[in-house]
């Protein structure tokens, strides 16, 4: 298969069409996320005032009235929805999501960028690890379905898979932070360390703190991939070409990896693409339970606090992430499947 062979005229058309679709999806998605919070009856200024009052602050009624007017002005909540929409795209074109409403005047983009590495680090690594090992074990379990260890692996996967990841996280927290306090309960790294990713001590500390959340995500994710791959492989091994290869005496390893698993990979690659795209919205409860300062926690706080800018920011990253991931997966199909290449 040559480069020229892969990227022919048809592929060019296909590529342009898919990119166009992706751009449309992103624009529509962002527009919807712009409109929905603004149609909601909740008002961030009122929320701020309530928060102050509930906190026990003593503010004179007349002062609250003046404060409300000034806040509406400063938050840019004056003007029609259309005016706000046009301004929003203008700012977005410059990479500016505006100031966070609840952490004014701190830019929403900066807040997101601070959380992003934690989410990407945690979810990218756990998604890839669970995908690789899940598919590998699933392939083996499907192909060598009569062996005792594959049955055990399947049983284990079937037992773990139905447990929601957050329940699993909580169980790990109780067992390894409370009953056997081997892992820290608080934060993403030891207190007082500089966030320097080049520092081995910092990396070790991060690994120590994120081991349990990662384990909860890997184990619950792995079960799904394993069972999915096993089911696919079980179907494929009854295909004529596999039977023929076996009769022809082709090595079992070659049959498994080159004939069976490769053919079973397409839906798994799609699944991986979707889950990688989705990492931008974070794993809320895992982050919450283990105190990881990622996008999930940020999204939760943004929604609870009705922080338009942050809600928009997190949603935009998620929309763009999923759309681009799907696009990349679509573009990778021709490499894995010659049938796609032909059409």
């Amino acid at each position, binding site marked *: 298969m040559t480069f020229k062979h892969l990227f022919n005229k048809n592929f060019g058309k296909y590529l342009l069409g898919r990119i166009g679709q992706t751009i449309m999806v992103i624009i529509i998605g962002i527009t919807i996320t712009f409109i929905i919070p603004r149609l909601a009856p909740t008002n961030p200024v009122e929320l701020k005032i309530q928060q102050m009052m509930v906190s026990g602050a003593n503010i004179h009624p007349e002062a*609250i009235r003046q404060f409300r007017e000034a806040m509406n002005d400063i938050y840019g909540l004056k003007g029609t929805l259309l005016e706000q929409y046009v301004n929003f795209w203008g700012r977005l074109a410059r990479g500016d999501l505006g100031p966070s409403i609840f952490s004014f*005047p701190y830019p929403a983009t900066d807040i997101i960028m601070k959380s992003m590495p934690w989410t990407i680090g945690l979810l990218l690594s756990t998604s890839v690890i669970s995908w690789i090992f899940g598919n590998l074990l699933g392939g083996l379990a499907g192909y060598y379905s009569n062996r005792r260890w594959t049955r055990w692996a399947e049983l284990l996967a079937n037992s773990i898979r139905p447990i929601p990841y957050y329940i699993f996280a909580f169980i790990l927290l109780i067992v390894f932070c409370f009953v056997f306090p081997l892992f820290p309960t608080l934060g993403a790294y030891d207190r007082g360390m500089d966030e320097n990713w080049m520092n081995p001590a910092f990396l070790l500390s991060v690994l120590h703190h994120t081991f349990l959340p990662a384990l909860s995500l890997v184990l619950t994710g792995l079960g799904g991939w394993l069972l999915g791959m096993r089911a696919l492989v079980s179907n494929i091994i009854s295909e004529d070409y596999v039977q023929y290869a076996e009769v022809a005496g082709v090595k079992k390893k070659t049959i498994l990896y080159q004939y069976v698993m490769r053919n079973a990979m397409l839906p798994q690659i799609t699944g991986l693409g979707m889950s990688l795209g989705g990492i931008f919205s974070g794993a809320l409860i895992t982050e*919450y339970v283990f105190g990881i300062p990622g996008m999930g926690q*940020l999204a939760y706080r943004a929604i609870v606090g009705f922080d338009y800018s942050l809600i928009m920011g997190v949603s935009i990253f998620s929309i763009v992430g999923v759309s681009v991931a799907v696009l990349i997966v679509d573009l990778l199909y021709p490499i894995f499947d010659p049938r796609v290449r032909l059409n």
Partner: protein
Amino acid sequence: MKRLFWLVVSALFATSVVYADIDPNKEVIPGVKRGDTIIVEDPTGAITNPDSFNIWTVWAGGNGGWSHGLQQLAMDTLWLIDPDSGLAHPGEKDNTWHNSLAADRPAYNKDFTVMTVKLKKGIYWSDNVEFTSADVKYTVETLAQNPTALFGPQFKTDVKSMTTPDKYTIVFNLNAPNSRFHRNFTVRWNACWIMPKHRFEKDLKVATDLMTYNFNPPLSLGPYTLKDYDKHGGWFMWERRADWARTSIADFGKPVPPFVMYQLDLPNDKKVIAQTNHDLDMIHEVTPEGIISLAKNKWETNWFQGFPFGHPDPTLVAILPNNAKAPFDNKDVRWALALSLDITKVALASYKGAVTLSPLQYPPTGTSKKYYFDPMQGFLKDMTLDTGTNKAYKPYDTTVATKIGDMVRPTFGDAVPKDPTRLAAMLGQGWWKYDPKAASDLLIKAGMTKKGDQWYKANGEQFKITLFNWGTGNPTLQRLGTMVAELWTDFGIETTALWAQDNGTRYNLGDFDVNMGWNIESWGGNPDISFFADSMHSRFYTPIGEVHNGRNQVRYKSAELDKILDKVNLSDFNDTAKSAALGLEFLKLTAKDMPTIPLMSYNVMSSQDNTYWSGYPNFDKPYANPVTNWANSRYIFTQLKQMLPPKK
């Protein structure tokens, strides 16, 4: 295989013992030992802009965080009122009142248009610059120019001018008589904190720069300075100033812990785990289930040293009917709603019986027993209602504490006292009777009829209530709301407990039937009612559909109340007897009118670990509020004892 299993379990257990070991020499952050550090919860939640220490804007700390040590340890203002009994200190007979930066109480002229304040001498900022009247003047002037700053609109409206005759005197000339102007500088939970003029003048080009100013690192006027903090807003470490004696806390002695660390973003389960592992000395608040679990440990203390555990906050949890909307605009209907509640069930559902009940529109905490709850007992016992069938129905029930005590004794055993006086001090002296018959009579008097087991309004519509409830963020109050809805439904008023994100917005607009929460908060240590009652004056009344300003979203209006509040505004705050007398007038009026249905104080289940530090306040030694996010909690640090000093 079995052998291997047990080997692994034993290894894990052995490791756990090592990890859970109490070690005063282990480092909390590099260079700071555990034995020298008190770790305190700040309930704010992780904050999104931890780099900001600008406490004068509503965005302070991000998502409203003022209490990561900033207001407790580094900020100061003119006066503080302790919500509990306070500590004895020089120059004041009243322990609850502290002349903090002020040398004396506020002095007003005869018509309350001028307030003169004498300041303490010898108070220093952490950069060795003396605090003077120029700082106070600068603070007020700067805030007045910023309408989105806390206290900005207040100063702009109220202050005509200021003069500083000398370094230690400031005179406020007010636009209108206001005997409570000093409230702006008097801490309950917080107040207007004083700015360091010399630093702000250097950093702010114009006053409005305040809104985008980070004030990082913060200059301290309190006994601690910022040492380090988590860039994700998870924790903040404060270090005792070497010159702490040049701060106002010196009135109470040396703050004991060399370091104070505030830990944020702790869900309930993690608080329990962290304190059990001795990694969290002071829990601000945990669920009743959490404190029941923690209280089993010998090293743990709480306000009551056992049942009912929680510290009654000077905050009144109440059912808040919309007084501007029929049929809740009818006093008889509001009374019917109160008498159809079995408060023992409400107490058990919410706090598992660990409540401090209040039949009055006032939280039953701090000095309120002395000023209000004891003096009101006679009035409450004699008070009568006209139920339509009984012209002199007596609704007050003094047996509820005993009933609740009997109900919870099987669970908590001897921790629940049998002495009725002690029980009443813990659980409240009384509440309104659970009397569905009287409640029915009141609804009939209000023109309603009962068909089958449902109540119908005079216009033929079924009487249904939507009760705005709390969400899962506060499971205790959520359960409370659900029980209220069940009891009313059982009584024949179909009630839906609803939690929705726009509950608050609708509440402010008056678009609600009944809300549940608090609109009355008191000083705790002082009987003055202005803190919460100002907003109830009819001049701030807003009709349904307009956003309300202040604390009277229930839209209660009374000419009699206006008269009381006008008297409050023209009375001397320092005349405590007068304040208490006016407060009693307010309580008698609202007891009859029942604008809201008072339930109980907001009991905060605070828990303390005595392994590294001891000497926390409690019911028998109520020198301070144990709730860690209050600015007044600074006093606790002067009373602690270091239990496990690290090796030097």
